[in-house]
């Protein structure tokens, strides 16, 4: 189940070429509108050097860019992640609230 998710990453651009089923055909317009907004928002919000802001010439290149991007984030996470994770997690005990 989880492996499916990991392996079935949808590539951007293919999403709206096929509508899933007849019953959702009528949704194309609304979804398309929403997607348009989304892409526009990404273009203006995302820093210019991210993969989202650059049209990748092919899927492989885009995949590599995404991986580099993620590698950079993981480096950053390594810098900020709490040390002694085992002890930290063990000590994180909360009283019930609400």
């Amino acid at each position, binding site marked *: 189940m989880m492996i499916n998710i990991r392996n079935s990453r949808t590539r951007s651009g293919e999403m709206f070429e096929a509508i899933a089923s007849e019953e959702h055909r009528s949704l194309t317009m609304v979804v398309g*509108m929403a997607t348009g907004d989304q892409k526009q928002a*990404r273009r203006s919000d995302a820093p210019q050097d991210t993969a989202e802001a650059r049209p990748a010439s092919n899927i492989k290149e885009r995949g590599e860019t995404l991986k580099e*991007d993620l590698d950079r984030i*993981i480096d950053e996470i390594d810098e900020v*992640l709490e040390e002694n994770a085992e002890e930290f997690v063990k000590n994180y*005990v909360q009283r019930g609230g*609400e």
Partner: protein
Amino acid sequence: MAIPKILGTETEYGIIGRNDPDFDPISRTLLLINSYQCETPSPSLWDYTQESLRFDPQAMSFDDIYDVPDQLDPLSINKVLLNGARYYLDHAHPEYSTPECTAIRDLVCYEKAGDRILEYSRIAAEQVLTGGQQILLYKNNSDHKGNSYGYHENYLLDRNTPFRLIVEQFTPFIVSRQIFCGAGKVGAENGTAPTVYQISQRADFFETEVGLDTMVKRPLINTRDEPHASREKYRRLHVIIGDANMSEYALYLKLGATALVLAMIEDEFLPRTFTLRDPVATLKGVSRDLTCRKPVQLDDGSTISPIALQWEYWAAAERYCATFSVEPWGLDVLQKWAYVLYHLEQDPLSLARELDWVIKWRLLTSYMNRHGYDWDSAQVTMLDLQYHDIRRDKGLYYVLERSGKVERIVTDAEIDLAVDEPPGDTRAYLRGMCLKKFRQQVFSVNWDSLAFNLDEGNIRRIALDDPLQGTKAQVANAIEGATSAAELLATLSGT
């Protein structure tokens, strides 16, 4: 026609001390609250009295004979903020309740402002701590050891809406909405079926369908009904099932879709009802199905996938929005809701910029692949926890936000504004502005009242039964023109 949506959220934060062997969450929470805006004198009493005085917009009602509310050390456990919010100690957690809002986007700003307020409190509190002691705060709902703390949404509904209808029609929606608003969690708790990762933080903690409790035997539908407003006119629906979101997008969609569904229930607009065979078990099952496709059992023997169930609500909401002149945010919510359901159907991982549970899943699995960790590693649970750390330099959600890796709904400037300015379209405006201008004279506050100490022993209380009274349009001129609370009261009461 459904009443205008008036909504707010309450967030309890997880709290822990570092280099603090005698850490006590209660005293540390009090320190946090008292450290926030402590340069502003005279915090106000929280008015616990339950009087429900009529509010006449033409001539505001006042209560001249007013007893001081009986409460234990109220100065230290409650703070009413300039933005109209309430910041207080709840059991052993700091809790922040947003001011009343009518626009979904505004509420995203005010909830996010709460995270900033807690962060400012933390920084201020640590000024007085010694020996490297620190206070760390988490906007999540579980300690991974079977203890949960809440995140609650509040929606005012028309009192005439039959509660039976709410239970019938709202239950399938909230059981399935986690597919877009779950915050993601490593592992299982509370004696539930084991899993390495699940969609919701809270699902493991719900045990009954309907009830009043929030701490034990938690119900899918909570019956607590304190409207903090006219009881004849309003019911307050206290939604306790949700996860606290880091993602603005997930938060916005959670609030917006829920508000639309409730409006349809009020108007008896939903064409057919789905009855889940076992809603409590379904909640946990949906949380464990990362494909969001596995069919759930309905009472009539048929099955439906969680995504298809959400599409049914979406389709009704689309017709609803086309039929009635809905609130301005309705269409935008409808578009984002469709966008998310469509992509969940195609590939949930394609929403790794929008939904907390997907953002976190991608982060965790990438990190595990890089370092060779498995789901049992303490590092993975640490990542899960630190995703919710509200420090903007250390919290992992904020690392991603800083790098442009998550979709946003509001801007930092708008959140900063919401830290100190009340919303203009509810009674929170009058509350916040009176605290700004006449703080020394504000004697006590509650959601539905404001009392002023005009001079020695003369306390006058305004009842604010209607959350849509006291707005900027109604009272801004009166507040601006008044040089004292007495003058303001005279203007407002028309004397």
